[in-house]
């Protein structure tokens, strides 16, 4: 109620009608990126494979968010929600993986000790 008081483009936020061209182009670019991600996985890039795959996935997710979910035409706050959620999730994953990588040897050793024992 208070947000739309501020000057915005002619249309009201949320009533933007997506043109068929943009919708089709969005779907087409998602298909192309899917093809690229499959192709890139067949090339051995070592640890970079997962980085490339995630980069492409993030690009695809951004495209979905901006056009299919029409965030590009919405109140910026909705984008803040999605980015915040993604950021919290990313930090959650990276903190825990950071921790687990450090104690990996202890798990390996315990694993082997058990195998030796049994």
């Amino acid at each position: 109620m208070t947000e739309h008081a501020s000057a915005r483009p002619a249309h009201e936020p949320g009533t933007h009608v997506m043109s068929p061209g943009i919708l089709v182009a969005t779907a087409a670019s998602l298909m192309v990126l899917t093809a690229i991600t499959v192709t890139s996985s067949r090339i051995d890039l070592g640890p970079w494979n997962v980085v490339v795959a995630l980069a492409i996935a993030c690009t695809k997710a951004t495209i979905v968010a901006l056009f299919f979910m029409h965030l590009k035409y919405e109140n910026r706050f909705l984008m803040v929600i999605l980015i915040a959620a993604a950021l919290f999730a990313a930090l959650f994953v990276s903190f825990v993986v950071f921790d687990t990588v450090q104690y990996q040897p202890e798990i390996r050793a315990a694993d082997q000790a058990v195998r030796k024992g049994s």
Partner: protein
Amino acid sequence: MTTAPAAAAEHAAGDSYLTHGKGIASWLFSLDHKRIGIMYLALIVFSLFLGGVFAMVVRFHLWDPSGGLVSNDAYNKMFTLHGAVMIFLFVIPGIPSALGNFVVPLMVGAKDVAFPRVNLLSFWLFVAGAVLFIATLVVGGLDTGWTLYPPYSLESSRGLGILLALTGVFLAGFSSILTGVNFIATIHKMRAPGQGWFDLPLFLWALYATGIIQIFATPVLGITVALGFLERVFHLGIFMPEYGGDPVLFQHFFWFYSHPAVYIMILPAMGIVSEVVAVFSRKPIFGYKFIAMSSIAIALIGFFVWGHHMFVSGQSKWANIIFSFLTLLVAIPSAIKTFNWLATLYKGHIILKTPMLFVLSFFAIFGVGGLTGLFLGTLATDIPLHDTYFVVAHFHFVMVGAVMIAFLAGLFYWWPKMTGRMYDERLGTASAILIFLGFNVTFIPQFLAGTMGMPRRYATYAEQFVGLNRVSTVGAVLLAAGLGVALWAFVASLRHGARAPANPWGAATLEWATSSPPPHDNFAVAPRGVPPYDYTGLTHASDEAGWIPVRPEGAR
């Protein structure tokens, strides 16, 4: 003295949300946020009572170092249920769901929360969760501790109890998410005309920050308990080492939610304190923007401190150091709030009514709770103190001392608005003093016991701690008596309390601009936003009429 039927007749004169719609179904399926708030309140007070009974068993058991009252197993079940009921069914939903539901739409001058049906769904999810918790009692209890650490909690010998409890937590969690969505949407979109972001009462800023945590942290609790459930049933090998899982991973999951959950508890409490301290000092709150922003800061930093629960769990050294630093940072916004509250008292006109007495005791207790948190966020001192009674005392200072006392402050403060009845100020004062004394006598000895090395969750303990434990048990009796007096004050108020005026305290926030109790649609005339802490426009007419505006309606 007015009799109950006479009081009811008086009420019938003006239509209020209490009289709008008759019969039990008009309550159970009401979409009215005020009725939902009252139903939450009833459940939450019942949970507090239930959790309190478990607590008394625990304390009396510990009178004797060899654990006189019940068996070890029964003791373990008692402290587990005490913790689980208090946390999931009292402190987490207490202020937001019960008091928040009632006052949030009123404070923004709206007719209801943004999504009334979702609100009702949230209430019933909570009821379902609570019922499952009670059901664990029936099927033989649960002795895992509220933290539910595997492998212990998911051992294959465990029966139905753990599955019921996990499902209960899952449902209560979703109830909490939906409440958060509702509050944030309400605060964003339903504000009265002319009510800018910085015209929001600080209680709403606090609930906004709480909402962020409820929405972004609670789903992780959901997935955690879902994984626990599936692990127990299908042996997935995620948490259980015997199938290749990692129990420390559970702790990461659990605390990613459960530490921010501490802020779900304390932020709304701080919000209540901000309201009450300004009203009863008759003076605008000091440093409004800093208090508001520190709520948001606490919510955001609170997401990245969960590792401090895992300093001795086998978490890696560098993760420990990073988490320790981030944890210490939370002290800063908390300090900012405290100093601003004190500055609000300065040169004020301090009225020592019951809500204010609770808030003043909050300052001391939250001071101790917050400062002892430093000992536990600091790595070097946490290692000896971890999982001792020092921790028990610390989180009781924060969760019981600070949160429960703020909850009571809020309940006394909004009671006239909710029920249309004043309470007896003498009973209120007596309860505030008894609770403050009882609380400190209960928990200060536990700091000493913990520092001396008494571990928590012990059914029996070394002879050296017997004195401290007995003092603590005596304190618990005092605390229970204080709560009993508070209950007495409320029951007496319902039976023969004086009629409450629209604005008994002279507060400027919008909920006091409508009648007590409010009509079904909250406001006879849709209000405009006003500065929430400007008391210059109000004058005290009489005890019966309360405070009334000196300027004509609508003037800003």
